[in-house]
């Protein structure tokens, strides 16, 4: 993690104190299920980071390192991963963590009844888990996967008690049982989720600064406050300690208000607009490019995000070391956009000045999930809408709730979409752009929203995942990214925003899990 703004306060506040309940206010939609295996979206990751732990994690240099696992080994052919667990760790239900748990969890993820999407894709290649001894398991893969440990560092694959997983899906959703420093106490639907300290917590990796292994906080009250303005007002008046999904304007003014800011860009893909290449008009690269030329991304971001979101020209998050960026591809030029459309044959105009071709209007539809796109982002799309109309697009924005949004995607009823995807490591590219991702996962979600279907690219992505050679991997991923960017399948915008604001009495902020979800293990409150 990167605790840029939190660390300065730490020294001033003195030694960490135990006690107090942290009140966290989330602007995300309430999770359907607290078990991140189920579905697997970011809000689930955010909260499960507190009570579940993963086999691996990321260190400050961005390297994948063991966490619940003590060590791991990959066979020569890359088809067998041997994972050894740290000894002496127990689940919240008192059962010890054994290799059996690895098997149970991977099978749980792969079970269609779990309806897993993110986790399912992450462990897709695991064919079998073989138990070597109490603490050791061998994962047999169908093909080499150099991203497996990255995948297993994400909370969507977090390890839960096998006993708990054996329960009814619904029951497991209510209160998943993991090994984390906090555990789920109760869930008051639509109001809050109550987490309490795990009094038997054992830190899997020694920390010289910690006297004992227990979290400082007595618990966390995870409140749901969807209204951004209300959430910020609650923070300002001190009713809550931390808010997520902070609005750009409030981030900007937070400094003056003695409010701390944690910027924790999510790993995996950048925030981008995908242009659905499977149907007209974006099946024509010229039209895709024309759209990209028509819209003013920089101006919009500057106005709407108040310098809190640097422009991205990459498919990957800025925290991904293998991200490839090409500034030259993305600029605004309205004349060029018009020329491109003319060239593509969209030369006629109707009464509303919308371009036509063979009697078809140049209509493009963008379903926007109000749960996933913050208002500033929605406004950005509105600006695109206005700008696109200047060159003759009739762009329609449909604001939808999450379920309808998924439905719109499932019905391929979109030309443009902004779908966040968080995954640790560049292998996210395979999930997002391999043609097989046009097929939906058991949850119904398919990740290749641009519907990129290039056999050559498929091959590169597979190869990149299978090669044991780091340099080759980097090279292949760069090629892949170039292909997607240069054919204008995607308009990158900025990193997936993950801003947190917190009051002055919150200390020790800054640590985050591999998926950039803040951890509150080391956080404490000044009383």
């Amino acid at each position: 993690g990167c605790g840029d703004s939190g660390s300065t306060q730490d020294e001033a506040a003195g030694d960490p104190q135990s006690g107090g309940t942290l009140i966290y206010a989330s602007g995300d939609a309430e999770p359907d299920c607290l078990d991140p295996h189920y579905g697997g979206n970011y809000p689930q990751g955010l909260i499960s980071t507190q009570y579940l732990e993963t086999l691996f994690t990321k260190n400050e240099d961005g390297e994948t390192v063991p966490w619940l696992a003590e060590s791991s080994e990959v066979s020569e052919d890359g088809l067998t991963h041997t994972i050894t667990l740290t000894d002496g760790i127990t689940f919240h239900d008192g059962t010890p963590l054994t290799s059996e748990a690895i098997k149970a969890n991977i099978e749980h993820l792969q079970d269609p009844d779990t309806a897993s999407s993110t986790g399912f894709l992450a462990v897709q290649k695991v064919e079998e888990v073989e138990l070597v001894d109490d603490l050791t398991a061998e994962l047999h893969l169908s093909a080499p996967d150099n991203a497996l440990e990255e995948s297993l560092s994400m909370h969507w694959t977090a390890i839960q008690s096998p006993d708990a997983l054996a329960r009814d899906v619904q029951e497991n959703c209510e209160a998943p049982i993991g090994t984390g420093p906090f555990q789920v106490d109760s869930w008051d639907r639509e109001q809050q989720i109550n987490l309490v300290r795990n009094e038997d917590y054992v830190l899997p990796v020694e920390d010289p600064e910690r006297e004992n292994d227990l979290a400082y906080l007595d618990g966390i009250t995870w409140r749901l406050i969807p209204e951004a303005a209300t959430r910020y007002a609650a923070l300002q008046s001190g009713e809550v300690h931390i808010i997520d999904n902070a609005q750009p304007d409030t981030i900007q003014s937070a400094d003056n208000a003695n409010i701390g800011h944690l910027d924790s860009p999510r790993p995996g893909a950048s925030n981008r607009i995908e242009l659905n290449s499977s149907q007209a008009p974006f099946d024509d690269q010229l039209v895709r490019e024309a759209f990209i030329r028509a819209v003013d991304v920089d101006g919009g971001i500057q106005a709407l995000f108040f310098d809190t979101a640097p422009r991205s020209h990459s498919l990957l998050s800025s925290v991904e070391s293998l991200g490839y960026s090409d500034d030259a591809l993305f600029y605004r030029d309205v004349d060029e956009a018009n020329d491109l459309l003319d060239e593509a044959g969209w030369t006629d105009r109707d009464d509303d000045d919308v371009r036509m071709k063979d009697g078809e209007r140049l209509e493009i539809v963008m379903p926007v999930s109000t749960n996933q796109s913050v208002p500033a982002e929605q406004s950005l799309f509105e600006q695109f809408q206005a700008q696109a109309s200047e060159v003759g697009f009739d762009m329609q924005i449909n604001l939808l709730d999450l379920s309808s949004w998924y439905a719109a995607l499932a019905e391929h009823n979109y030309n443009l979409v902004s779908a966040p995807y968080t995954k640790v490591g560049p292998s996210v590219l395979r999930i997002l752009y391999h043609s097989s991702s046009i097929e939906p996962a058991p949850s119904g979600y398919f990740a290749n929203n641009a519907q990129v279907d290039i056999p050559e690219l498929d091959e590169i992505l597979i190869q990149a995942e299978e090669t044991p050679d780091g340099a080759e991997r980097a090279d292949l991923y760069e090629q892949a990214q170039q292909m997607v960017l240069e054919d204008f399948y995607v308009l990158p915008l900025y990193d997936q925003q993950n801003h947190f604001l917190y009051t002055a009495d919150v200390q020790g902020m800054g640590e985050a899990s591999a998926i950039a979800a803040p951890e509150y293990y080391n956080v404490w409150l000044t009383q």
Partner: protein
Amino acid sequence: MTRTGKFLAGVFVALIAVAALFPSLLAPGSPLAVHPAEAFESPSLRHPFGTDESGRDIYTRVVHGTADSLTIGLAATGLGMGIAVVLGIITAFAPRWIDSVILRGLEVLYAIPTLLMALIIIAFTGPGTTPAIIAVGLSTAPGYARLIRTHLRTLVNSEMFDAATVLGHSTWRKVRNHLVPNTLTTLLALVTLGIGQAVIWASALSFLGLGTPPPAPEWGAMLASGRTYLHFAWWMTVFPGLAIVTVAAGATLLGRSVTRRST
């Protein structure tokens, strides 16, 4: 109403009418034109109501939004009133048992809160401007129907009607001569009172993300997007809000004066 009152009411109605029919007379710019570089400007001479997050002039949007918001208010009230008139007439004249069946039905609908009903209707139709109109219209109809029924019943049982009966006038003539004209005034009052409320209900739906989608300058939708920046750009919320309050309150006052005059 006093003379100044009448004058002010006249000016108000005229302004609203111009804003709804010829918005460009009051605000020549385009309500949809974005200027990211001019985003979040506070009210000034150039932008009397400031600008929004995309640099659109809020004054222009408020003026151009009049038509949208008012159309929703009018259409919804018209729909609700249309249904209500039909039901009201049926209940007022039909045999007793039909009356009591419909009355029961109305009571059922009345017992379901307006917004709940609107939400259920939107569950049928999905969000949008037309669904919002239908939802608001249908959910306000029972209330109107009850009022109209009472009104008609009172008229039918009034001595005015008896007098016409005694004079030997046919039912049709009584309806034409007394019922329709006297009901029209009441309806007019109800409509003006209803428009304000319909605008508010519709804006509530927009606020919940179920009404007119952005970037249309519908007031409720503007408010909904402005509330995000409440702490930073108050003008984005205050002015569309004031527009709603002004129109709703203005319509109510107008309605009250109509009621006054007709009694």
